[in-house]
């Protein structure tokens, strides 16, 4: 599974403050830590105000590229800001995101096509987020019609079926897993991505729910997630789940992760004890 690292997001309080105060060290540290933890993309969201978005995004991009060459995921629906910053981006970025909304298909999709970007596609349209798995499939079919017309190959599309809050709808889990399976069956080349933050809203011990959701989503076809790569317990759950699902040849990633101390969270392994003796 691949990870889009979520932390450089201006709608988060500390990051918003760092952007406003131009705290370069804070942003670069966040980038480095996420890369060390195995991020495949670094999501970059400048948040805040439409007037400042392009300038803030450019500032973030330059800083991050100063410390890492991991590709970026430009988290913006603003075509003006995206076009303004793209010349400064070294590696072809992912664009986060398009959807079935006319404004995004008209404004953002041409940029994706022109630059050969990978793109996150949300299962929603101008009428909002559909309630059922079937209705989401209808929306995403329209999105694929548009991406194919624009010349974007399916394998560059990361469909996010939009996980909803379980606290307000106990069927939210089955709906999203059903949607993932249906999308995978109909668009086998496309990727399936997902964010976790909504799933556990309103309930205690959210990290436990997020972890469990992610493991089940991996079985339902999700291959990419927008998460915090520095969450050790979440990372350990991913490694174990991929092992159990038969995706870890010779169990090598699992055993290597164990030896690196990634699975035991502070508990010394026999090897590390021997080394200390």
């Amino acid at each position, binding site marked *: 599974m691949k990870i889009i690292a979520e932390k450089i997001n201006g709608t988060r309080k500390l990051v918003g403050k760092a952007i406003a105060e131009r705290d370069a060290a804070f942003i670069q540290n966040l980038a480095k830590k996420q890369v060390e933890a195995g991020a495949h993309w670094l999501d970059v969201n400048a948040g805040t105000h439409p007037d400042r978005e392009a300038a803030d995004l450019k500032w973030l991009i330059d800083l991050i590229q100063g410390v890492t060459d991991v590709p970026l995921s430009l988290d913006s629906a603003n075509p003006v800001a995206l076009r303004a910053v793209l010349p400064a981006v070294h590696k072809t970025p992912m664009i986060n995101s398009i959807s079935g909304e006319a404004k995004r298909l008209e404004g953002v999709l041409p940029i994706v096509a022109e630059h050969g970007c990978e793109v996150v596609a949300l299962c929603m349209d101008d009428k909002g987020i559909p309630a059922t798995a079937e209705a989401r499939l209808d929306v995403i079919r329209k999105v694929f019609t548009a991406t194919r017309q624009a010349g974007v190959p399916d394998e560059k599309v990361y469909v996010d079926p939009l996980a909803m809050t379980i606290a307000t709808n106990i069927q939210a889990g089955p709906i999203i897993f059903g949607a993932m399976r249906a999308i995978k069956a109909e668009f086998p080349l496309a990727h399936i991505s997902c964010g976790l933050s909504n799933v556990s809203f309103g*309930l*205690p011990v959210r990290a436990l729910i997020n972890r469990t959701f992610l493991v089940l989503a991996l079985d339902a076809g999700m291959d990419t997630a927008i998460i915090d790569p520095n969450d050790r317990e979440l990372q350990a759950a991913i490694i174990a789940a991929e092992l159990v699902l038969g995706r870890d040849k010779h169990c090598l990633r699992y055993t290597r992760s164990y030896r690196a101390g990634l699975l035991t969270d502070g508990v010394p392994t026999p090897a590390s004890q021997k080394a200390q003796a």
Partner: protein
Amino acid sequence: MTNALVEAIADMREEDALALAKKQLADGTPPLEILDACREAMAVIGRRFEAGDCFVPELIMAGEMLKQISELVKPKLTEAAQAQKLGRVLIGTVEGDIHDIGKDIVTFMLDINGYEVKDLGVDVPTAQFVEAVRDFQPQVVGLSGFLTLAYDPMKATIAAMRAAGFTGQVMIGGGQIDDQIREYTGADAYGKDAMAAVALAKTWIGA
């Protein structure tokens, strides 16, 4: 008697609560007393929610219990008692934002605390708020928005309602909202959660 009902609701024992309400009605307990017990139970649940000891799905479940109990009680209420609402609150998520959970919880908490709430839904254009203010005549308007994109529509909606002659209070809430955003949008106050919204309504309209 009433205490047992308060406890049953507050402890999420749905079957017990409904059975108790039915029995009390049959035994001749005044319907308003039963509704008061519901309100008391919701205050207990609200405090537990604030303390992190009770959660969103339980608020929803409590809402369902309350709905069932009030349907049992309603036929026995006089018209005057039914109309006895504390005040009117208009609520909605502003244009460009489709988040509904926070708004729904606020609507629900205001409702069970005795306010008449009109919920315009999500992605509500400014013009619709202005029209609803004119028709519904609320004392308080609550604007919800989770996205940073919601701040400008909030500001525009408040300005438009004021220009149309609305003299009541406006509260805002959702996501990252703080006092700086409150000032930017021109709202009278902001609330961190549903209990804060109820507290604001009580200050402005009375309880």
